[in-house]
Structure formats: C-alpha cells, structure tokens
C-alpha cells in the first residue's frame, strides 16, 4: 500500500504545483493591478452574470480609467444568476465583506427586507454630493421607489426602455390582415373587454392555421396574478402576496382574487381552453420559449410601448422573433401609463452599510453612469475587437470575444440623453429606436406614479399566513389562469383555502401598515 500512499502524495503535490498558477495569490489579481498605486482601495461589486471571455483585458482597461478618475479600483464579481439571491442573502446574513451589489425587489434578492434590516447604506445625503448627475437624471418617482422610511437605500439603474409602464397586446400582423381583425379597437379598453375582443380573432386565425397557438399560458406567469396594471390595480408590497389596491380607489387594500375581474378572467381562460385557443398543458408548462421561437403565438401580452397607433412606422416582431422574419407584430396598448411602485427597485445598486469606502462606492456609480466610454467598455467591450457594426449598420457581437451577456442593466444606467450608452444600430431602425426612447423618457417625467410608491410592507407579523397563502396561490393560480380547471368549481374552493390560510389577516395587516404610512407621509 506504500504505492498507494506515495501515489496519493505525488499526485497531490504535482497538481498543487500545477494549480499554484491558477490560485489567486492576492485578491486583486482579478481586477488587474497593473496600473499605478497598489494601495488604491478596491471596491468589490457583486452582480449576476455568466462567465465572460477576455474579462481580465477589459477589467484592466476599465481600472485604468477608474483609478485615474476616482482613485479606486473595481473588482467586479460575477455570480451565477440562479444562486445570486442566495449568495447575497448569505453574505448579508453572515456579515461578509462586500462594497457594492446589484439589488432588486424580485427574484428573492429582497431589496426592501435587507434595506429595513440595515444591510444597505443610507445614501440620501451622499447622492446629491457624490453622484449629482445620477441623482438629477432620474425622475423623482423612481427615487421614492427605493426609499424605506424616507431614506434612499439604492442607486436606481435607469434603463433605456424607461420606467413608466403601459401594457397591451401584440398580434401577428399577417394573421390580422388575413382575418381582418380590427386590432385598433382594443386601444384603451379594459382588459376583460380587450380579451373578449381578442377571443374571436384567435378563433378565426386558428381555423386557418390549426398548428398555431392562440395565446401564451404558462405555469410561471399569469396575466392576472403577475400583472396588476392590466387590471387597473397595483400590488401593495410583494406582488405574490394577496393584497392589492384598485387604482381608482387607492385607499383600500383588497384581496385581488376576490374581484369580479379575476372571476371573469378565469372564465375567459376556461372558454379559450375549451375552444383550444391555449395550450392544454398551460398550467404546467414552464418554458414557453420554444413556442415563441417557432413563432407559434397568434396574440401575446406586450409591455413595450409606444404602440403602433402612436408610432405606426415601428417595425416590431413577436417575442423572441427576428424583426425581419415572418412573425412581425402589431401592438396596441390598453392600460394607463404609470410608474409602478416597484419601478425603482426593478434594477438598482446598493452599498454595504459596513463598507469602508461608501463614498468611493457612490462615486464609482456616478462614474459608471456618466463616463459613457467606461460603461460601454464594460458592457460591450472594445469596438472592432469584441463587436462591430456590419455593412447594414447593425450591431454585431464578434463570436468568442468579450460580451456582457446582455447584463448591462445591472451596473448602471443604460439610458443616456445623447444615446451614447447602448449599441443602437447605425441605420434607420436605430434612429426609430432613439425616437421612441425619447418619447418614453419624456413620458417618464410626466407619468403618474403609483400611489403606493415608497410603501414597504413588513411581513413579519403575519409570516405564517404569508407562507401558507403563497403556497396555496402557487398551487392554484396557474391552473385557474391557464383555463385547465373549471372556475365555477375551483375558484370558490381557492378562495376558501386562502381564507383558511389567513388571507384576511394579511389584508388587515397590509391595510394597517399602509394607513400608518400614508398618515406619516402627510
């Protein structure tokens, strides 16, 4: 057995030597410590991203700029997107070191809970001082969206597609023409009415193209439960927990599943299911991208606006389809235009309250937001090496080179008044994109903000009820929203189970906290 022992030893030794090259001798090696002073403070910035090619080359260049401008170095740490929330919550809950991190109110990243716990630094006074440009460029309503107790806890990543939301529907252009559907009539109709108009169109289209699917249903998205704006409602606190308000009566917290709209919606979906307009397995299918890619849907929900009535010249495609392909789309919006309460916390950057370099961290964000070259370097790479504009002026990443996997929205504002921060195609399409974005930006300034913006629901007094209600909802919502169960039988049962799980306690608690918050605001 000596042989075994010596084999073990020699293999271990050999591999240790081999790997000594890979083991980081000091942490800064990833950030590229080549330029200048090694004593510069290093800011760690956590975000979600998959591995990136040629990362060191870009980070070295980026750090040349950053160290010159603010006297600090950036160590961008990319965490797998499916574990990001777990990892950040672990780091926060174990008191680990970090300086900056992408944060949001979705996907379990828990912006509000962490802010309330004191994990994030209070930036209210630091922003105007160290990040004046970032601060002034973003509409006031968005800053309200990242406040807890009237203090700002994150820097909003203001995106090129704006913050105000207006939802609508998109239809296959060729089928609209084939069936003569009056799509423009859907404009501004309440969603129930809109769906009632869309139904016959789906029937006509599917009669001619039976291989297609009328409307998308899936287990992880419900047109009702995941999209309050369609129903002229807004979630009070976390969307998945019962307790919304109607925007026309914004003082009263209601159980959204007890509304007439939900009952009507489930009836329509049941009807569509019976008529074969939606997938038979819509309640259980998770990944619908194959259907989208195959251009199978006749109609779909659409978030992007302005629609084709505002800007008829737009060239849009159905989701996940090529704009030059056969599945071009006509879109029409039907809801009000509003900056939802969650808009600010859709994408933001927080600073660790325990960080030794809070000011520098804020300065870094300001630099990322104002130095377009730096932002483009990190999010796109170097022109000519990592990407190019082809002969038609279309932005084309070069295969196998540095690319940021479309995650630019996590590390700063992609919006820019001069349109110098995103890869717009250098052709007519690119110009239209800029036009529509200008329109969006102007609307953002004037759009109404949600009445619940800035309110944070603390679920801890009703934790048990929340846990049980979310379990019930997760079980029942997909089937009701996909039409695979008969709402006449299942809906009453669902409401009864919510009651047993304590939904009324949650509504009461939400109402109490909401009232107290409104009172304090006045």
């Amino acid at each position, binding site marked *: 057995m000596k042989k075994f022992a010596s084999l073990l030893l020699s293999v271990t030794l050999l591999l240790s030597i081999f790997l000594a090259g890979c083991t980081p001798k000091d942490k800064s090696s990833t950030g590229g410590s080549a330029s200048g002073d090694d004593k510069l403070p290093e800011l760690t910035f956590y975000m979600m991203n998959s591995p990136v090619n040629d990362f060191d080359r870009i980070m070295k260049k980026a750090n040349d700029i950053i160290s010159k401008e603010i006297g600090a170095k950036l160590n961008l740490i990319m965490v797998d997107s499916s574990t990001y*929330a777990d990892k950040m*919550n672990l780091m*926060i*809950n*174990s*008191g680990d070191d970090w300086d900056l991190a992408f944060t949001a109110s979705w996907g*379990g990243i*828990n912006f509000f*809970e962490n802010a309330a*716990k*004191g*994990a994030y630094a209070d930036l209210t006074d630091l922003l105007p001082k160290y990040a004046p440009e970032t601060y002034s460029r973003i509409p006031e309503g968005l800053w309200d969206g990242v406040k807890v107790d009237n203090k700002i806890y994150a820097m909003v990543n203001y995106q090129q597609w704006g913050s105000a939301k207006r939802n609508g529907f998109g239809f296959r252009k060729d089928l609209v023409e084939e069936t003569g559907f009056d799509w423009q009539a859907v404009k501004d109709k309440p969603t129930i009415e809109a769906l009632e108009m869309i139904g016959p169109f789906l029937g006509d289209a599917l009669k001619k193209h039976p291989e297609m699917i009328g409307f998308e249903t899936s*287990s992880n998205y419900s047109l009702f439960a995941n999209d309050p704006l369609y129903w002229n409602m807004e979630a009070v606190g*976390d969307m*998945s*927990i019962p307790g919304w308000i109607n925007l026309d009566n914004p003082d009263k917290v209601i159980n959204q599943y007890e509304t007439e709209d939900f009952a009507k919606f489930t009836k329509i979906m049941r009807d569509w299911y019976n008529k074969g307009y939606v*997938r*038979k*397995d819509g*309640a*259980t*299918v*998770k990944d619908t991208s*194959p259907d989208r890619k195959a251009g199978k849907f006749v109609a779909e929900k659409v978030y992007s606006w302005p629609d084709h009535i505002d800007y008829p010249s737009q060239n849009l495609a159905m989701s996940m389809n090529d704009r030059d392909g056969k599945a071009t789309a006509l879109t029409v919006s039907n809801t009000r235009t509003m900056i939802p309460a969650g808009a600010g916390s859709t994408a933001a950057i927080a600073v660790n309250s325990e960080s030794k370099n809070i000011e520098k961290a804020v300065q870094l964000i300001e630099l990322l937001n104002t130095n377009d070259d730096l932002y483009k370097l990190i999010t796109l790479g170097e022109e000519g090496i990592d990407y190019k504009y082809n002969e038609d002026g279309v932005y084309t990443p070069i295969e196998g080179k540095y690319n940021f996997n479309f995650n630019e929205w996590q590390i700063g504002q992609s919006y820019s008044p001069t349109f110098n921060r995103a890869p717009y195609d250098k052709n007519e399409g690119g110009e239209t994109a800029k036009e529509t974005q200008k329109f969006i930006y102007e609307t953002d300034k004037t759009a109404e903000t949600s009445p619940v913006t800035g309110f944070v629901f603390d*679920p801890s007094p009703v*934790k*048990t009820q*929340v*846990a*049980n209600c*979310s*379990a*019930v909802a*997760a*079980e*029942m*919502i*997909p*089937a009701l929203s996909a039409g*695979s*169960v008969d709402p006449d039988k299942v809906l009453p049962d669902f409401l009864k*189970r919510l009651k*047993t*799980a*304590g939904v009324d306690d949650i509504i009461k608690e939400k109402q109490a906290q909401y009232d107290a918050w409104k009172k304090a605001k006045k």
Partner: protein
Amino acid sequence: MKVITNTKPSLPNKSNRTIRSMRRQLPFYLMMAPGLIFITILFYIPMGGVLIAFKDYNARDGIFGSPWMDPLFKNFEFFFKSDVARTVTFNTLFYNLLEAVAVTICALTIAILLNEVKNKFLSATYKGSILLPTFLSWIVIQYILFSLLSVDRGIVNSAITGNGGEAINWYSEPSYWRIILPIAYLWKNVGYFSVLYVAAIAGINPDYYEAAELDGASKWQKIRHITLPLLKPTIIVLSLLWVGKLFNGGLGDWNGFYTLPNDAGALYQTTDVIDTLVFRSLKKINDYGMASAIGLYQAVVGLFLVLISNYIIKKKDPDNALF
C-alpha cells in the same frame, strides 16, 4: 446455517491495565483523528445553526445573539397550520417507503443476477449502463423526462400518435406522477445500490460457495443461505440510513420532486413533499428561521425512527446494529 464469522470483541484480559488498553487504542484513534476532526468542524460546529429554528434571526446579532422567538415555537407554526400538511406528509412517507422497498429489492435482484453473468465483458457493460443515470443531476433528468413526455414534442406521445392513438397530457394529470416519480427515482438510484451490493457480494469468500456446491446446493439455495445472509449487514446499514431520512424526500434528495414535475401547481397533490412545500412557501420571504424549524422537525422525527429501528435490531441481532 451460520456462516458469518464476525469480529467478536476479544474480551479484555483482566490483568490489562487501562494504560495498556489505551496504548492499544492509540493507533486507531490516530487513524480516526482526521475523520473525526473534519466531522466535528464540518458538521458539528455548524449544527449550532439549529438554534435559528427558535430565533428571530438577524445578521447583526448573529446566531447566538438574535432574540428568541416569542412564543418559542412560532417558526414551526406555519407548517402545522398549512392545510396541505397532511397531504405532503403522506406523500413524503409514501414515496420514501415505496422507494426504499423498490430500490432495495431491485438492486439486490440485479446484483445477484449480475453475479450469475460469467462473461466479464458483458457483466461490465451491464453494470456500466445501469450505473449511467447515477452520473446525472436531476436537472438533466428533467430535460430527459421532458423530451420523453412533452405533450407536443415528446418521444412517447409521437409514438402514441404515430400509431393512431391520442396524445396524453402527462404534465397535467396528477395521478400519472404517482408512477412517474418512483420510476424516475428508481432509474436514477438503482445503479448506485446495485453496485454497492455487487461489491458486497464480491466480498463473500468463495469457499462458502464451493463448500455448498460440494453439498449439492442449488443456485437458489446458495443465494438464500449464503448470499442473502451475508448481505444482511449491508442491507441493514442502508435501510437505517434511509429510515433516518424518511421524513425528507428520497434519501434526503428531494430535488427530484421539485425539478421533475416542473414545480407545477396542478400536480402538487401527488408531487409535493415536505421539503418542496417548505422550499416554495419560504422562497418568497426567505426566512431562515422557518426553514430550519422544519429541518429540525424532520431531523427529530428521523432520529426517533432510527433509534427505534436500531433498538429492535439490537435486540434481535446485536452484531448488526448500527450503534
């Protein structure tokens, strides 16, 4: 027919002084040291975390400094108040018992039959292929299952429709999953246990078989009177490990229950086990206290079951008791 020559504790000589016994034990303790140290560091130190089950945990105060829950068992409340607690408890026990029995029987059968395959190449090929799924993660198995059972693109349905049948909506009907899930677990795990049993059979001294052959024993007799009794310790150890995890999804590996049915609400009735319910309920509020409360509850029930089974085994067959 008793053939087990087990390590009978050699009774300590009365003249043995404590020191001498300690000197005899010393080399063993030296050999155990790394293992025991790592077990202490990796498993026992973090075990302080079970306290979180009774705490209103926050990072600032840490595990020990965080305030106690008031009432103390508040973190446990949500599970017992849940209206599906009974369903998931039933599912957990149902699948685990089924799985434990099915895997053990299948793996034993396969291992014994493999022993009959004398051609080395064929035996290696069979073993290798049975073992293949062990290499796969549940996510991969989910992809495979979906490509088999997808309503419109799956292999099974295209075979059915190809023969003029009607496509079956596998992912929408809960009752199918009572069969699909155990088969999937069996498919993934049976190779692992077969190989364990094969290794155990390989360890049986061939003299026993030769002696039995001389006595004119049939194949079946040899299996019954030599192989099975000699495999008993292995079967007992594996069963005890299983019993301890009875309250977690299959051997504590509940990921399959979450992954395979696509976490589909319509299927929960037959696919939800305690761990998936807890995982789903707490995903939204990310509460470490409630999560560890359920973990603790499962562990305590598991411990209870293990101690009982071990006690029974000890009574009947002291050599094979785990501790």
